[in-house]
């Protein structure tokens, strides 16, 4: 009897279908927020009952950049900052696939910032999951465009002298149709947000505030991973539809979380088809991807 139970436990990890088990264990540190975020995406895909053959994930470089390597999906680990334009090409070639870009704040917003705003502007149908740990973690904890003013980093040993980006405001003002922010503590709400983002036609953006206890917390003497989760618990303020001018994150300030934007707008391919229809009338066959044969 007990032998049978053991066998069942061994056989089925709940996320085995969606993870490359031949690549586990992963390289991430204990208490990193990435495990939780990957679980949230995996659960979202499971709950949506999507055909995972039709989901592709694209990552850039960094700790979060490694996500593509652990997801059992068609997955692309590209160069630093370039996950988004790679995903643009992939999406246009295969709009029938759900394209998910999963990358970090430095990758998406610093070196990849231009691609981020322009892809949002075009409202290309893809989901961006941005794990924001306030720091360049893979390279050893250097300052990022998301590092709060005054916070310390390996390259700002006397405190950061730069104002950080407010990512939900940046995404929304660039044209994103769905914008949400949660922390790695809000697993259930984060999963719901990822589900909504994936289902939303157009450029959807989910920011995940995630603990980096190895670097950010250590340099700034913020305690352990558990202390960071307690901080999120005590300092997160859920404010759906918040004025995005008010969701800046200061050093150890309150963190406004919630669903901020959820609007309808024609996607890039919608507009492409509408424009060509205007120009060519019935001669134009709406674009549906592939080599133009569908």
């Amino acid at each position: 009897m007990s032998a049978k139970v053991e066998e069942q436990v061994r056989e089925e990890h709940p996320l085995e279908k969606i993870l490359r088990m031949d690549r586990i264990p992963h390289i991430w540190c204990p208490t990193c927020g990435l495990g939780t975020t990957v679980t949230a995406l995996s659960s979202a895909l499971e709950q949506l009952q999507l055909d995972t053959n039709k989901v592709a994930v694209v990552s850039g470089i960094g700790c979060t950049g490694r996500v593509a390597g652990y997801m059992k999906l068609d997955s692309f680990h590209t160069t630093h900052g370039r996950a988004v334009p790679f995903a643009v090409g992939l999406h246009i070639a295969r709009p029938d696939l759900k394209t998910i870009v999963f990358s970090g704040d430095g990758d998406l917003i610093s070196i990849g910032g231009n691609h981020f705003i322009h892809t949002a502007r075009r409202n290309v149908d893809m989901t961006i999951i941005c794990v924001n740990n306030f720091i360049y973690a893979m390279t050893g904890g250097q300052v990022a465009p998301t590092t709060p003013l005054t916070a310390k980093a390996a390259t700002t040993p006397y405190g950061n002298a730069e104002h950080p980006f407010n990512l939900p405001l940046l995404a929304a003002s660039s044209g994103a149709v769905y914008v949400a922010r949660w922390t790695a503590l809000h697993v259930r709400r984060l999963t719901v947000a990822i589900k909504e983002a994936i289902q939303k036609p157009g450029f959807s953006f989910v920011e995940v505030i995630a603990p980096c206890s190895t670097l950010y917390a250590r340099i700034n003497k913020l305690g352990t991973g558990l202390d960071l989760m307690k901080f999120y618990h005590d300092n997160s303020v859920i404010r759906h539809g918040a004025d995005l001018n008010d969701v800046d994150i200061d050093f150890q300030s309150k963190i406004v979380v919630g669903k901020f934007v959820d609007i309808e707008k024609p996607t890039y391919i919608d507009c492409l088809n509408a424009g060509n229809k205007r120009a060519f009338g019935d001669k134009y066959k709406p674009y549906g991807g592939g080599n133009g044969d569908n």
Partner: protein
Amino acid sequence: MKADPKNVLTGAHYLDGNHACAEGAIAAGCKFFAGYPITPSTEIAERVSRRFPLIGGVFIQMEDELASMNAILGASWGGVRSMSCTSGPGFSLMMENFGLGLMLETPCVLVNVQRGGPSTGLPTLPGQADMMQARWGSHGDYEVIALAPDSPQESFELAVHAFNLSEKYRMPVLIMTDECVGHMTEKVVIPDADQIELIERRYTDKKPGEAWPFEETEDLVSPMLPVGQGYKFHVTGLTHDYRGYPVINAEAQHKNVSRLMDKVRKHADDIIWLEEKDVDGADVVVVSYGISSRVVQPAIQRAVKDGIKVGQIKMVTVWPFPEKRIAELAGKVKSLIMVEMNFGQVFLEMDRCAKGKCETYLVGHAGGTVHKPDEIYKTIKEAAK
């Protein structure tokens, strides 16, 4: 596979090299173009943007060249033939992700309509000074394939050929043209679609779960895996094994990089395309490529009239370099002359391969105009002494 008649503008046309190049790409089945405006290449993008809607293609003007290069890689993995065009400054910006294309072994075509450099240089005037950048511009060790058309007609033909090579060897292929060829207008004859042979992409015939993206094959070219069909494959710019999984050690590095290089080196005889004239028995052989291979003609004719035995080699492919042929010729001729619009780039390769067995001469300048035939003639005279 024959070209799709719907894509082919069969007939005789009066086109510049850039428009002809665009038509070649379209005839080859290109259905995705991502680019950023830059002189003197932009006519390619403009032509494609006009032609695509009714043949099921998508043109997108990206935010910069880094995005353009990545978008064509993404589209290629999506199963669509893709290309971009640029010139010097944009080529520099594309170099990192050209490397990603080589590492992910992604078929696509990139056109560099060369202008004078460095930096912003001469936007509206020709150069051939990106040839070494084409060879070595991305970091790391690798081999490339680069073609150099000398006319609008050849711009059409080599665009088709570039797509074929990119599918055959599963890698990005470069077309290194220049402002002169790009903006020169001549008669271009586009054949019937059934006269245009296209190489189809080779996909795995294995089932999902059994196939890997970089499997070892005899010809070193692994069949690709299609997206959206359950293969759930992974590819990475990191050094990887046959599964596409990162492996960070010297052994994996040796295996991965050697394969990328051998894929071209071992097929060099198939890839290299030279057009030779009067080379047997020549005392002097003039080697050139692209527009320079036309500019050498009056100089050679004049030297032949003087009684000098002059042969010529037009390099249709510049990379991989025809090492064997140059080494062979160096043992037979008095001199080899390289004519190119730079201060000696492909010349360095010719000189290396000659190994001191003959004299080598460079007729080069900084770009901005083609050579004066007189300079070439004088060098031929000198080289024949």
